[in-house]
């Protein structure tokens, strides 16, 4: 659009951003890591939007992340961590589990009612709850030795998303946007899909002290929707796109004049950039969210055909998880990463459906029935399209659940040991990493803290987690704080 170039150059405008402290931290890092050249840092960075793609520390193995967060925390011993000893010691509380305190007091060991079998060439053991995903066992890198700090949802959600049990740090998605930018400037680089709000709500994907532009963009798509409406107010009823561009340019010129009178201000720049992003989103978001372009075969792959699409899991006392919504969010995730969105996080319904303090077995049966097919469909679809190699999938909860019982058939929170799995970009498929004790309570072999997971994720994305820093309040911050070991064993 020629009017744009004549009236307003975004690059001129954004040159102001380079003065903020925002980019200097990374600039220094990149300078050190990547470039022997002596060009001034600012001049290089000011030529780009804070969201444009930035060089990595080393060759990335994955370019994008899809995080399937089973909010509320699934039970490892019912899903990916078979423990036959639970049957043998059912109802007992062996000595070495007594001191493991969780949120509530739990009773004796509660065996899983679900059958496990070996799948794929790798023979990974998976429970009957994931019949579809099991067919893709050879794609999975199952980490059975995850652990985190506390058996409390709020804190552990923040740990999982921000690397801190307090709501004071930026989300890892924000760190990745800050470090890498995004491949598609016309869509938010960090999208959060789900229904309602999970526990902690937007503080899980907040950018905190990183510039606001790096925060996650929440999109809650209702059951019936028009792709032009998923993001509210996506269309202007009054102006053609050309005329609106002209108006936006005018607004930005006013903003620019205002900014030059007031001096550099992150809050002003963020709003300016946000307006640009909003303008571009009008076109690209409608397209990205338009799943009518998908074939019947694709819908089927995600379990979105026929009566199956109407499946709903209801865990007593918890929110429901709806196949239509969860499955469609998986499909949307593929459409988004296909378009270069850097980070997509999906949560599994309002609040925390997986929090099975009671009726754990039925709850897992119902929940897995809803999510299994869409997750398998997502992996399969990405694979077919050649996207899986550069897309990292992370599945798991904020912690796991106890192998001991709470009430008759409940399981409490368990931060000592749990299972997450990775697939795709740069990880070894068909692999089991680490182990819990004989009851599945505590991670004992190749223990992997959430900080280690973060370090590994960043590594796969081409970032040295110790070098991605942001100077704030007199010190350099990083996602992994003073922690984090890359799990080299799982790298492909």
């Amino acid at each position, binding site marked *: 659009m020629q009017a744009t170039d004549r009236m307003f150059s975004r690059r001129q405008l954004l040159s102001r951003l380079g*003065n903020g*402290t925002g980019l200097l931290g990374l600039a220094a890092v990149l300078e050190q890591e990547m470039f022997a050249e002596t060009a001034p840092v600012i001049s290089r960075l000011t030529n780009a939007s804070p969201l444009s793609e930035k060089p990595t520390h080393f060759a990335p193995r994955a370019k994008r992340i899809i995080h399937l967060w089973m909010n*509320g925390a699934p039970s490892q011993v019912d899903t990916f961590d078979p423990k036959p000893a639970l049957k043998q010691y059912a109802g007992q509380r062996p000595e070495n589990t*007594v001191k493991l305190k969780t*949120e509530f*007091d739990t*009773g004796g060991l509660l065996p899983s009612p679900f059958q496990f079998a070996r799948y794929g060439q790798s023979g990974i053991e998976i429970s009957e709850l994931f019949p579809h995903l099991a067919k893709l066992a050879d794609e999975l890198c199952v980490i059975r030795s995850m652990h985190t*700090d*506390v*058996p*409390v949802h*709020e804190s552990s959600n923040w740990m999982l998303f921000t690397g801190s*049990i*307090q709501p*004071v740090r930026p989300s890892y998605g924000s760190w990745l946007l800050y470090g890498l930018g995004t491949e598609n400037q016309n869509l*938010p680089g960090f999208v959060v899909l789900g229904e309602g709000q999970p*526990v*902690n*709500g937007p503080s899980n994907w*907040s950018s905190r002290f990183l510039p*606001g*532009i790096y*925060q996650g963009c929440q999109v809650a798509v*209702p059951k019936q929707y028009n792709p032009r409406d998923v*993001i*509210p*107010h*996506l269309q*202007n*009823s*009054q102006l*053609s796109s*050309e005329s609106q561009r*002209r*108006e*936006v340019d*005018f*607004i930005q010129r*006013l*903003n620019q*004049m*205002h*900014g030059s*009178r*007031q*001096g550099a*201000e992150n*809050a*002003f720049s963020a709003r300016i950039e*946000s*307006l640009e*992003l*909003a*303008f571009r989103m*009008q076109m690209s978001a409608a397209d990205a969210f338009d799943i009518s372009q998908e074939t019947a075969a694709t819908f089927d792959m995600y379990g979105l055909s026929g009566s*199956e699409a*109407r499946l709903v899991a209801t865990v007593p006392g*918890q929110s429901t998880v709806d196949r239509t919504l969860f499955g469609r969010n998986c499909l949307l995730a593929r459409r988004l990463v296909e378009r270069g969105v850097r980070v997509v996080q999906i949560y599994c319904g309002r609040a*925390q459906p997986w929090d099975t303090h009671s009726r754990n*077995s039925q709850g897992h049966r119902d929940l897995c029935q809803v999510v299994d097919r869409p997750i398998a469909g997502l992996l399969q679809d990405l694979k077919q399209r050649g996207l899986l190699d550069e897309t990292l999938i992370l599945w798991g909860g904020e912690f796991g659940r106890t192998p001991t019982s709470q009430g008759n058939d409940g399981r409490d929170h368990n931060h000592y040991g749990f299972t997450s799995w990775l697939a795709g970009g740069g990880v070894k498929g068909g692999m089991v990493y680490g182990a819990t004790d004989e009851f599945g309570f505590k991670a004992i072999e190749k223990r992997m803290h959430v900080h280690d997971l973060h370090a590994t994720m960043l590594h796969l994305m081409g970032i040295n987690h110790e070098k991605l820093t942001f100077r704030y309040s007199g010190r350099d911050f990083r996602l992994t704080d003073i922690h984090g070991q890359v799990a080299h064993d799982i790298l492909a």
Partner: protein
Amino acid sequence: MTNTTGIRNRAGIRSVTMNAPFSFSRTTFVFLLIVWTVALPTTAAESDPSGIEYFEREIRPLFAEHCYACHSATAKAANKLKGGLLLDTPSGIRRGGESGPNVIPGKPAESTLMSALRHDSLQMPPDSKLSDALISKFEHWIQLGAPMPESNDEAMAVRSIDWTEARRDWAFQSPIEHDLPAIKNNAWPVSFLDHFTLSAMESRGLIPNQKASKRELIRRATFDLIGLPPAPEEVDEFLKDDRPEAFAAVIDRLLKSPHYGERWARYWLDLARYADDEGNSFLSPTPNAYLYRDWVIRAFNQDLPYDEFLRLQLAGDEFPLTSNDYQQQWAGLGFQGLGPQFRKGAAGEAKAKADEIEDRVDTLSRGLLGLTVSCARCHDHKFDPIPTRDYYSMAAAYNGAVWSERVLADADSTNQYRAWEQQLQQQRAELDKWIADQGRNFGRRELDRIEEYLIAAWRIRALIRRGQLIDEAVAVEQGNLLGYPLNRLVRSLDPLASRGPLDAWILVADQTELSDKVPDELRIATQSIKDAVVTALRRLETKADATTNGTVVPEPLTEADQKLLTWLWQDGSSPFFIKNKEVPSLLDAQQKSESQTRQTKIEQKLSERPAIPAMPSVSGGGDPLHILVRGNPLQPGEQAPPGFLRVLGGQAEGGTANRFTRRQLADAIASPQNPLTARVFVNRVWHYHFGRGIVATLGNFGRQGTPPTHPELLDTLAVRFVRSGWSVKALHREIMLSATYQLGSQSNERNGSIDPDNHYLWRMNPRRLDIEAWRDALLSVSGRLDPKVGGPTLNQRTPAIKERPEDDFFTYLVGNVLDDPTNSRRTVYSIVSRYSPNPTAGLFDFPEPNVVSEIRNVTTIPQQQLFVLNSPLTIAMAKAFAARLTQSFSTEHDRLNFAWNLAYGRSPTAAEEQLSHDFLSVTPQNAAADQFGPWEQLCHSLLCSNEFAFIP
């Protein structure tokens, strides 16, 4: 603590456990000093978790059920203690009463408890001996060593805090007025507070910005005090006023404006977690909640002293009536009455009550005291000197309280209102009963086809076992059965569900392979259920007939019959129990008409509501509470002595108070002696003037909070605030007349390199307008603002609820909607719903109304700008704004000048005028299709711009 979101975990207990050895604060790492010493006699049994678990699971409930009536602190308080024996504390259990040692660990035979339970000696419980099975549990427990958790003795001060030491923390010391600190640049300060800020700047090498321009000042002050932009004539008047007191005159004018209360009430409502509906799992509007909101607006406008403001909100009903203005005296109680009310159904009354009390304690402690007291509901506070006992001591103010509606009027009017209310309730109850009866009849009718349902359920279960996915809709299509009972039947038959009288049938069904023809075994099994149902129904119904006419000899309904009918039909969770909400879809035409008639009568009654104000309030409270072990209402422990927090001087050791009323609570908080109340409020006001509090964590002055940047200033302001008679308006004047408040907001590279976040106030922070001020400014600039103060939010013509078919019949409240372009009331009058929060409000950082909001986020995301660019609201406002310009002036220059003065409070610069001229004069291609003319676009642009969105 961590739980600022108020989200509860599965069990509904606040998750506040934290094992972190330290916590991060933005400026520094604080390694925590635990100020109390723990003196615990530890025995092997006490530290044995499985033994303790046994005690908690098996023994304590028995004590509670059979013994507490005569052997607990409650009994003692009620003068009902028998034999000097306390069984609600570990030491009491061990020590025993007048009959000597009660429990000797490991030696059941020698323990008095055992001989009493066996009725060998004392015969306890006296009315009936416990079963042998239960007695053997006690024996087993004593053999284990009588393990009991250490925390049970909390009320007996097993954990001792060194209170003198704890109170030494700055936040618990009474604030004093500090001497002015030494400064170098004596010419700069205008008021006392400038000495404190300048001293902090000078010691860090910061140089204060230049003073803001007069245009900036009046814009800043007007947004700050009334939440609206200044009118162009107000700006002109101020510019012309050369007197030194010109700015003070502006402040006084603004403080007298009725719009002042609207702006500042909204901040208070964030704290008071105000909403127009209850925080329930279904939509329950409180149409008169606005009476509280309007009370808060009036209180600010009248400059009601802050201590009185608090007293009326906490205990207005317990202080003597000072006039016959019942609204003035009682409407403030909405602070408590409008808090969440939880369902008392399945989750249990005790739990709901405990959660409701926690909400009140949390709101007032974080909101008024800056302390996270509710962390101590489940465990001693990990960081602050607030033991669990103190939570329950203070929460006693709400124990026994009810949140029912209060009529804000004299007795006669109250009676008149109550009579109307009773009639309405009766009509509603009759309708509910009628619906329930229809549901019962439907269930009864379908029971006649029980065999068809069982066979359908068998097929569905078999398909599910094969891994096929099927839902009730499919089965309904097959068999013309009702989907609702069928689906419930399928779920009830699950072996993981509780067992019932159909177990034998399930066994057969699950072993029967799926086939088109029903195999004989299953047919026989099904027929036998059918027969049993028919028999049971006959017995039930002949019994009923017999009762009515006395002629038929009743056939007895056996226990098995009853069990079967309960399992299938009569219990709320039975498959054939048709819940009320399912009934409407099953009604036939005649029944529908009957239902409609009843509905219409109710609506008629509603429209006859007497014009007497009534709203959710609070009454009663003050009864002692038992400590709930780990916050669990099912595990009551020791009774906590009722009273205020010990660290703030409450419940003197050895105190004998047996009540702690809300009035006492109010007196303890709204007191010059309370070291936190004035500080916390002054800090909030400071935050709203500067964008950051002196203590940045407005709701946490504890060790997890951020330390004050200007502690002496905070203290001095607090002291002066109290001395002014707790006058909020005086506080505004004090702050706004300072040189610090009047600094320019421009950035400065040098200062920025030392203090990037402006903690030391070398400039005014440019603050983005919150959603209220931004929307109100849109309305104001476009000439659409309705300046009416107060009044209902929701449609008073009831029901104030509608369904939205496009959202699966999601229900929502009807009234002033924030983003409705036809709503011209100020934003403070928009609906705040806990059930269906307005998405636009959320998009612009409006806080969650279920819990006290400590501080608002300021986020910047593209969807906000989509709203700015494309929403019907901004488009309508731009059109109105443009019409205002074109109607008022004819030349481009005059119109631009007016536009800039309305939107920004200044005239355009030459560059801006040129830019605008270019924009207006070039007609873009395809402009014919645009519905937005050039002036409308220009006005829209101003409303979308940064300058419009920030307070300078």
